[in-house]
């Protein structure tokens, strides 16, 4: 039962109606949305961002070139095809017309010349040989004349660039057979036109060849022009395509920018169609999506915050009641006291959880603001450790940091220290040492708060993840001994980020984990 068709009900009954129990789950839109075919069926009220992302990325992979390139190339190809076929048609027409024109003028010329030759031969047969007549016969440079009298070809001797032997044999055969013939042929890369006919009055075959140099030149000019124009049109079309695609893609870029801004946390980003009716539906859809997303995120964060707030009232009653009972410990039996202490410990933990959740929900809502004061970091660290109530480890303050001032929210830094110390105790075999040293190298300009523990260290693979919410190390399975809320380190990293600082975990030289918090140092004020 792996395929889920759009008509889900039928697919269900067909595929597994008899053998599989949970048919109803197949009908759920979620399952449909993430069907392996990648066909997303978005149902109203069901927003599955994972399925969405999946689909988009798949499509992106399938695509090789960008939309803009594709549009430009399409334009270019279309223009090339169009201009090329137009060119071919034009070229062919021009060529045919030119040839026809040349042929008809050549034919007219041939008949005129033939008339002349005939008259000359008839008149002066006695005095002049055909060769002499041909010799006296003035023809344009590109024209040659030949006579076949008594089976012998005679041509002019003056020009001699072209002899009758160069004419195609088939032509000669046809002419000698008495068929008037007109034929084009190539010689020496030039096109020639040969016209020949039998003249009965003188019993001779007269042939004239014309070099069609004008035709070749005209055609090459026409061809070159057409080629050039086609090239220009193609390039122009590509540019137009590029320009148009830029304009078409521009809204997409704007949407992409807006989307990444939203992804970056600026949920109030909206699009403006700029009065373009084509873009109205896109911007409207996008803005609706952004509204829905923002509303949903707001609702989620508000929900977490509201829940935390609502829990505070019963918690207040519980803590106060437990304090009341603690004041009457003496009136309780031993068992009663044990139960009271258990209750006390867990209510405290519950209390901490609610505080942590509220803190997190404030970070999520972007409502967290540091109540910043200028404080001596060394003193703040010492006081914070004092407040944790377990100063059974060495604290080393580098002399250079004794007077270092940072802009800090005391409450938050106190939580950072407390949570790190608590973390070391719960997961790291206890605190080995806390130190405050000036940052060096890439951390110049910061002061480093270092908490070393005596545990097994943190595997490299977990060093980022450990700051995630409810990230649990192997040690945390021992829930009986651990009092963590699972939010401690994640809150630490949020607090540190609020101070424009950074936090990471390293190996402590000699074993154990080393948590390092880097806080930016304030420039020394002149008043101090």
């Amino acid at each position, binding site marked *: 039962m792996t395929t889920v068709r759009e008509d889900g009900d039928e697919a269900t009954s067909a595929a597994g109606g008899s053998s599989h129990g949970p048919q109803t789950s197949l009908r759920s839109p979620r399952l449909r949305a993430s069907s392996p075919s990648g066909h997303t069926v978005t149902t109203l009220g069901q927003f599955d961002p994972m399925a969405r992302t999946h689909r988009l990325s798949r499509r992106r992979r399938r695509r090789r070139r960008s939309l803009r390139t594709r549009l430009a190339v399409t334009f270019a190809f279309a223009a090339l095809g169009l201009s090329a076929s137009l060119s071919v048609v034009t070229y062919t027409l021009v060529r045919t017309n030119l040839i026809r024109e040349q042929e008809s003028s050549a034919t007219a010329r041939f008949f005129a010349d033939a008339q002349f030759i005939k008259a000359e031969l008839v008149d002066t047969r006695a005095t002049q040989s055909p060769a002499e007549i041909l010799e006296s016969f003035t023809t344009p440079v590109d024209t040659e004349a030949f006579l076949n009298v008594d089976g012998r070809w005679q041509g002019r001797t003056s020009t001699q660039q072209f002899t009758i032997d160069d004419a195609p044999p088939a032509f000669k055969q046809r002419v000698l057979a008495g068929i008037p013939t007109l034929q084009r042929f190539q010689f020496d890369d030039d096109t020639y036109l040969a016209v020949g006919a039998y003249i009965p009055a003188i019993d001779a075959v007269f042939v004239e060849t014309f070099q069609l140099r004008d035709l070749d030149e005209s055609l090459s000019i026409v061809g070159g022009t057409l080629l050039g124009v086609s090239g220009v049109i193609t390039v122009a079309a590509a540019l137009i395509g590029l320009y148009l695609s830029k304009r078409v893609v521009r809204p997409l870029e704007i949407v992409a920018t807006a989307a990444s801004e939203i992804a970056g946390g600026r949920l109030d980003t909206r699009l403006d169609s700029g009065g373009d009716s084509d873009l109205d539906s896109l911007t409207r859809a996008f803005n609706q999506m952004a509204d829905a997303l923002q509303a949903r995120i707001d609702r989620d964060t508000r929900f977490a915050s509201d829940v935390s707030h609502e829990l505070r*009232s019963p918690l207040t009653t519980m803590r*106060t009641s437990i*304090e009341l009972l603690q004041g009457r410990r003496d009136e309780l039996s031993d068992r009663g006291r044990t139960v009271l202490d258990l209750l006390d410990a867990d209510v405290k933990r519950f209390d901490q959880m609610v505080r942590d959740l509220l803190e997190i929900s404030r970070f999520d809502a972007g409502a967290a603001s540091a109540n910043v004061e200028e404080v001596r970091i060394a*003193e703040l660290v010492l006081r914070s450790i004092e407040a944790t109530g377990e100063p059974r480890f060495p604290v080393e303050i580098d002399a250079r940091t004794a007077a270092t001032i940072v802009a800090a929210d005391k409450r938050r830094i106190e939580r950072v220290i407390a949570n790190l110390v608590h973390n070391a105790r719960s997961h790291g075999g206890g605190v080995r040492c806390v130190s405050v040293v000036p940052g060096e190298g890439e951390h110049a300009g910061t002061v480093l708060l270092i908490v070393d523990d005596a545990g097994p260290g943190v595997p490299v693979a977990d060093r980022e993840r450990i700051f995630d919410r409810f990230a649990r190390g192997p040690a945390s399975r021992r829930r009986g001994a651990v009092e963590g809320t699972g939010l401690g380190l994640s809150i630490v990293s949020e607090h540190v980020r609020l101070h424009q600082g950074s936090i990471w975990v390293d190996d402590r030289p000699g074993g154990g984990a080393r948590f390092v918090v880097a806080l930016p140092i304030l420039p020394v004020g002149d008043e101090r």
Partner: protein
Amino acid sequence: MSARILVVEDDERIRTTLCLALEDEGYSPIGVSSGEDAIDVLSRRPTDIVLVDVMLPGIDGLELTRRIRKTSDVPIIMVTARSDTLDLVAGLEAGADDYVTKPFVVKELSARIKAHMRRAQSGPGDPGSEMERYQFGDLEISPAEGVVRLRGEEVHLTRTEFRLLCELGASPGRVFSRETLLERVWGYDYFGDGRLVDVHVRRLRTKIEPDAANPRYVVTSRGLGYKLQP
């Protein structure tokens, strides 16, 4: 005599347990569930300290604080479920002297009450202030009488504001850090909320400064704290 505490809290269970716990701590609490009842009780009975829940039906905690301040300088401790900056500052500006955040520990609350009671008792005729009076320009502070006069006219200050001014006035020109003031005036340790000082200084300025935006007497020393300009 045990301190008479008015507990204004609409959540019945919190009110009941809180009153029981305060009795255990040796106070005499009276619980009411609304701002209207609180005003009624205040007008009929002497009260040493008021605990006001910010979220109340009807007159809310902020409005109640403002109304109480019109007629009384009794110390008011705001009980809030929100420690967000805006809510907190709004409450302090309405005239509250201090705040605790739910869920609180009664021992902490009791420590706060004690701090304010101590100051209330040692207010006029504070044994710590031997000097009869300080005079700075038009401003006259008389710790012995518990009175502040501006150009000879009495200025009405709450006890916390008065105590703050006396601290600053006892060492004119000396810069007091927020921590020092929190410890001396409110009895807080290092982790006290500096906003308490800031808001009280602001309130004080509107009462004694000719121009609160350009203070003549209570001057900010940037990054360090506050001092009284002699």
